[in-house]
């Protein structure tokens, strides 16, 4: 499915929040892939530099909120001399439809990629209808 076109760098998009952050830092939106299978919806977020223990996922008011924090101690004592991208925490939220069973959301994190599985509620699974 991936074409042979050249890989492009996606400049990081900054998070535009209705509320201001209390820490004076910039937060970025992780790139997301969303695809739907028969029984569940999968959301994949790329958050390089974020360890599994620094990921915070919660469901609030029908919204799925994902936050990933970077460990800044790795950058102490380093002086930037050539930079092409910015570094920061990640946050993104998605509105969940009522078709998702919010209690059964599962998450897996590997190599900076977070995969969320959102199972659909029983009634939302598509049914084929026989034509008589």
């Amino acid at each position, binding site marked *: 499915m991936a074409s042979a076109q050249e890989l492009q760098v996606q400049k990081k998009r900054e998070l535009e929040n209705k509320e201001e952050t209390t820490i004076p830092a910039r937060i970025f939106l992780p790139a997301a*892939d969303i695809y*739907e299978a028969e029984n569940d919806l999968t959301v994949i977020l790329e958050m390089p530099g974020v360890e599994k223990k620094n990921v915070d996922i919660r469901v609030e008011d029908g919204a799925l909120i994902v936050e990933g924090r970077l460990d800044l101690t790795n950058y102490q004592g380093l002086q930037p001399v*050539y*930079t*092409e991208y910015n570094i920061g925490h990640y946050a993104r939220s998605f509105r969940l439809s009522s078709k998702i069973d919010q209690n059964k959301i599962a998450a897996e994190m590997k190599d900076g990629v977070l995969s969320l599985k959102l199972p659909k509620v029983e009634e939302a699974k598509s049914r084929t209808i026989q034509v008589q």
Partner: protein
Amino acid sequence: MIATFVDPFDTLFNLQRALEGRLESDWLRDQTTSQGPFPPINVFQQGEDLLAIIELPGIEKDSINVQAKENIIRISGKKATTYPEGVSVHRRERMSGEFDRTLSLPVQLDPDHIKAEYRDGILALFLPRSERDKPHSIKVS
């Protein structure tokens, strides 16, 4: 000119400001050749040596190729995003494909002591400066 990160609350913000400030840096402008701009690389200085940090989430460690010679480093590999059969894609923002990037640095490196570490989607290359490149003090007799 040196950005020191002292205040813990401002630490991330100062780092981000320092990174932004150097986005237009001339340091490597005429010396870098690449197939394309992916993946984005940040180069830091740690004492005498350099540290290159590259964001490569979701890559198989074995598919990353790092080569070094004199003052050039080359990073190549394949980034794959695979989807199961028969799914309907709602949103596609992640990129996948092959990458091959060469970076010319203004210092001579010691290729035997270069260390590469891939963790949590970040490839960190520890690039020590070659001994011949470091300034030697000369005794005046």
